[in-house]
């Protein structure tokens, strides 16, 4: 008679080890497995967070060896009363609003088109999704070349359609155009992500709903506004929240493209925060700044989780 796998495993376990394991409850064994993860989480996430909260109430400077001085809420008061940081927030808002607007508009349109069955459907999906797979540093670098006024392809394409001289405008050097240049690049890179989420939403709509609408003689436009849009809306909301949270923290792509310039017109909050923390070395002040951004992102993430649960319930 052949022994089962667990019987053989039990027989192969040394008696001393088997006795020790038998002495532990299921709960204790579960804790042994979970403990390393919890420890890492506490060490890497929770401890630095608590430390940052503590530092945000002090005037600590990481490059000076001196005692901490408790300043209470002064750092928060200064940040929330600083009109320069307010301008950085507005630059972030401009970037957030327009990237989300274009990404949702183009992403949904692409998903709607891709959802129609046609020859080469899968190939087109792969091609569209490619920019999303590139590193932001690489994307930033090659768009910098594309935006070059002398040799950049972008200027030549614009010049072709508008009749202007290619070197007559500078996307990254102009105060008016630089905010739009980062919007264009982020839209190019992340529209496929929104498209994929919308595509998942579109494919989750059962065909029988459309068939019932056909029977009721509902027009295509009516079907679009009363079936497609309401059914895809939770997915769209998810995409908006996800992109919102990601773009609120945007750093790498913009640093590669403009470095926050010209002046500070494209200096998003995360770039400004890095300057306060690692160029001016105002660690306490930067900690308070980070906590303000953290609470905002945490609040948005809470809404995101709620929206995600709603999508799951469907």
């Amino acid at each position, binding site marked *: 008679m052949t022994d089962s796998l667990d019987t053989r495993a039990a027989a192969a376990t040394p008696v001393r080890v088997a006795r020790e394991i038998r002495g532990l409850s299921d709960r204790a064994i579960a804790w042994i497995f979970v403990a390393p993860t919890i420890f890492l989480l506490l060490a890497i996430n929770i401890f630095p967070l608590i430390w940052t909260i503590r530092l945000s109430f002090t005037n600590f400077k990481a490059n000076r060896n001196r005692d901490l001085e408790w300043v209470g809420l002064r750092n*928060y008061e200064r940040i*929330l*009363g600083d*009109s320069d940081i*307010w301008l950085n*927030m*507005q630059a*972030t*808002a401009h970037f*957030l609003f327009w990237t989300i607007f274009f990404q949702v508009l183009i992403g949904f349109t692409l998903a709607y088109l891709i959802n129609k069955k046609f020859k080469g459907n899968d190939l087109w999906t792969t091609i569209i999704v490619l920019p999303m797979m590139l590193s932001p540093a690489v994307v930033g670098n090659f768009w910098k070349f594309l935006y070059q006024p002398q040799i950049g392809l972008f200027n030549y394409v614009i010049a072709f359609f508008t009749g202007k001289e290619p070197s007559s405008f500078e996307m990254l050097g102009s105060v008016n155009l630089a905010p739009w240049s980062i919007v264009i690049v982020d839209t190019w890179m992340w529209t496929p992500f929104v498209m994929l989420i919308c595509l998942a939403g579109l494919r989750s709509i059962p065909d029988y709903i459309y068939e019932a609408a056909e029977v009721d003689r509902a027009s295509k436009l009516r079907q679009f506004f009363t079936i497609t849009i309401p059914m895809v809306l939770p997915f769209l909301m998810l995409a908006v929240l996800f992109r919102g949270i990601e773009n609120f923290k945007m750093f790498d792509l913009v640093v590669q493209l403009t470095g926050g310039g010209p002046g500070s017109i494209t200096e998003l909050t995360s770039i400004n925060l890095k300057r306060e923390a690692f160029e001016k070395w105002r660690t306490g002040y930067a900690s308070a700044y980070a906590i*303000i951004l953290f*609470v*905002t992102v*945490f*609040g*948005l993430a*809470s*809404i995101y989780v*709620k929206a995600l649960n709603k999508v799951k319930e469907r």
Partner: protein
Amino acid sequence: MSNFFTGLLRLKRGPWEMLATILIGLGVVMLMQPFALWLYTYSFVVTLAGTVMFIIVSHFKE
């Protein structure tokens, strides 16, 4: 609308989560609007209140 207020009074999760979500959204808008500095100044308090409220009310019964 009356259901919403009844839910609030009976400490139901849905309406309270809705209220917390509105506060968080309002706080984010206040943080980034270009119209008034005082709105920006009070944005953090509003967002923090919304976020803390969200954490608490997500433990309420459905």
